[in-house]
């Protein structure tokens, strides 16, 4: 027998004579009798008293809280999305909040029925330079020539072909939003919206004729120029050499938006290729936000700097 077993044996021996004190037994019997006269504790999961019941309830309540919190988060997110994009206007998802709220949903201009051949656009609101063989479309003044665009205040003859910005133009302060970049002089383009100058440009994402994806957001940090054109518009295409020079010199990204169908554009640009991004917008969904003929330079701050 080793020492450990000896110690155990001694401990066993010493504790063998232990007896429960009579006070203890009496206390237990008293307690049992008093408990016997009380109704027994019934444990039920629906009984909010007992131990087990409270355990079950804590689980149920905990799960409910988790579900409700998740629902609340979803509802708040949905409401915020709704507030940001009320009419379902094609604002890009994931837009920064300031930009998204700055873009007021412009009412889409009703598109006049195009009775005439699409290749020969008729005069319609928002398009100044309509050139074609169509006798119905009177030859309007070419864009760069300022005096024609400002009939009230005719200027001495300006050599045509100059960039419109260089010509004298009526300076108009921005109406609403204080622009970060000082707005440039606004050309009075019939159909154009001078109040757009200084506003945040409508952010869009579109597919070009070549199948490329072009979005203002991806072009952040670059100067972008929206060039509103139409196939069959000779002046639009006569600007191309100048635009090419500008693009080469300054790195401006030019996005052409034409109000023709894709097929028309493809066949039309076979003769006169358009060297920049070109987006077909036959339903004038984008053009509703860039109305008028001409170009919209958009600065690095994503605001329209001028209309020319």
């Amino acid at each position, binding site marked *: 027998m080793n020492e450990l077993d000896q110690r155990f044996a001694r401990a066993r021996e010493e504790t063998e004579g232990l007896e429960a004190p009579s006070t*203890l037994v009496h206390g237990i019997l008293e307690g049992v009798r008093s408990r016997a006269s009380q109704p*027994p504790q019934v444990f039920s999961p629906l009984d909010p008293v007992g131990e087990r019941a409270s355990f079950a309830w804590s689980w149920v309540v905990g799960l409910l809280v988790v579900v409700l919190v998740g629902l609340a988060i979803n509802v708040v997110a949905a409401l915020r999305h709704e507030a940001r994009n009320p009419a379902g206007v094609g604002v890009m998802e994931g837009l920064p909040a300031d930009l998204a709220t700055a873009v007021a949903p412009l009412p889409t201009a009703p598109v006049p029925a195009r009775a005439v051949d699409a290749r020969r656009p008729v005069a319609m609101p928002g398009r100044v330079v309509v050139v074609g063989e169509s006798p119905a479309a009177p030859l309007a003044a070419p864009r760069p020539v300022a005096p024609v665009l400002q009939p009230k205040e005719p200027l001495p003859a300006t050599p045509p072909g100059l960039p419109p910005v260089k010509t004298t133009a009526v300076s108009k302060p921005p109406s609403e939003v204080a622009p970060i970049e000082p707005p440039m002089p606004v050309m009075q383009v019939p159909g154009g919206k001078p109040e757009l100058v200084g506003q945040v440009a409508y952010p869009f994402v579109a597919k070009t004729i070549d199948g490329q994806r072009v979005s203002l957001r991806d072009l952040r940090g670059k100067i972008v120029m929206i060039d509103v054109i139409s196939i069959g518009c000779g002046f639009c295409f006569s600007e191309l050499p100048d635009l090419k020079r500008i693009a080469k010199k300054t790195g401006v990204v030019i996005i052409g938006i034409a109000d023709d169908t894709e097929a028309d554009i493809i066949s039309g640009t076979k003769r006169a290729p358009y060297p920049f991004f070109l987006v077909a917008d036959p339903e004038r969904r984008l053009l509703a936000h860039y109305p008028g003929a001409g170009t919209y330079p958009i600065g690095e701050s994503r605001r329209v700097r001028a209309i020319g």
Partner: protein
Amino acid sequence: MRQAPQQPSSGPVSAAELEAFEKTVTASANRLYRLAARLLGSTSDAEDVVQESYFRAFATFRDPTFERPENPLPWLITVVTRVALNTLRERKRRSARDTAWHQSRLKSQQAVEARAQLTELSGWLDELPEDQRVALVLKELEGLSTSEIATALGCSVGAVEQRIFRARNALKRRTES
């Protein structure tokens, strides 16, 4: 056709039932008290544990869904063991200890050396993990079989053997050092 099992009344316990339980208490009190004292190494803790165990046992005894055992002693031993285990765990957290078993109940003629040895053993048991301590005490002092211990602790026989083995090893190292 089988008869539906008779449900005990959910109201106050009948006099006969109460008398039966009281008999059980008086018959088993000494045994359970000794068991608790050995498990806890303290007589005052043992009193608390025994009282708590009987009250719990009575609550279960009244439960209509409880199948009453013919011999209540093993069942009561299980109850006491588990209550004692809880008390041991709580005591370890409090790290409080009052009366040791040997100090209150040892016979007066007990040798001083034996007393010191028991104190030492008690201290060693205190340092063991509660599971191991309870298994070892049930085996060495109560003389229960491993299967009885397994029932009382609600674990497998293998687990009981392992606990006892580890506890013995730890104590052996103490006696050798």
